[in-house]
């Protein structure tokens, strides 16, 4: 999306969306690693309602917008579903993320929300996430073959 055709409402709406998103993460307990770990240890299944409730709302929104709405008012973009190509990295990355989530009880969005509830030790996790993202980006910049970059660009 080019920045030229953005309206003055673009940034405030992104901020408002983030605000509601972060408020939701805080009220759901996802911003607390202990609550997430309780879920993963089968002591509190409430988290099923967080991902489930959120996916139902986005699912209805995506379905209605892609079928019945024309273009997004603030950008002129067409509405699409989130469809990423499948390859080995989806499984390998998911496994690594799963181990990290199980060790720490923290995922990206929830970590940012955790800062908002004053949980300063979470900065360890955020520093870790940036280190990990940097390491994988550096490694893939070094090791990507031409074939990989060609097949990746349209979907990733």
């Amino acid at each position, binding site marked *: 999306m080019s920045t030229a055709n953005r309206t003055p409402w673009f940034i405030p709406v992104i901020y408002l969306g*983030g605000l509601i998103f972060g408020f939701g993460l805080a009220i759901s307990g996802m911003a607390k690693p202990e609550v997430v770990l309780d879920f993963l240890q089968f002591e509190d299944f409430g988290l099923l309602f*967080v991902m489930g409730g959120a996916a139902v709302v986005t699912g209805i*929104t995506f379905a209605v917008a892609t079928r019945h709405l024309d273009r997004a008012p603030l950008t002129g973009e067409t509405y699409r579903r989130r469809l990423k190509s499948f390859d080995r990295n989806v499984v390998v990355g998911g496994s690594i993320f799963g181990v990290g989530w199980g060790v720490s009880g923290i995922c990206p969005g929830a970590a940012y929300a955790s800062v908002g509830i004053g949980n300063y030790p979470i900065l360890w996790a955020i520093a870790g996430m940036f280190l990990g993202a940097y390491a994988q980006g550096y490694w893939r910049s070094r090791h990507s073959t031409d074939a990989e970059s060609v097949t990746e660009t349209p979907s990733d």
Partner: protein
Amino acid sequence: MSAFVSLLALGDLFPRGVLPYLLGGLLVGLGTAVIYLATGIIAGASTFLDSTLSYVSSVERFNRFKYVTSRGWRLVFTAGIVSGAAVYVLVSGSGVWTTDVQWWRLLGGGVLVGVGTRLGKGCTSGHGVCGVGSLSNTSLVNVATFLGFAVGTAQLVQALGVAP
């Protein structure tokens, strides 16, 4: 009587109740929907890592067009998430909260989360909420994979006696 017993068993599964979780989930979905309906953007939380690294790194991967052009609004989105959680603390009167989970778990787990979400093309919000909401097979496989590994890992860590 049997209905009462099964209600108790249900309560065991949800010691903190269901309402805060459900309300939180609906709001997470609503925040995503507000951005999507206004802009067509499907906002995930983990791309922020790559796009923000483009400010400080010359590594080619972080300086892709899609990261550089989106890094500004992704900062705003993340600032919104932080402020939204802070607003919750203010209106709920719950007070500031800090975790007892040890720093090395947060750091080590964070590194793996950083590698895994970027390699796997998304996280709990990208694949788990938006991808599942799109009924994307790729996302459903990713979510099943990370849930399985997270449960296994958390149980193992607990069995090893690491707490908190």
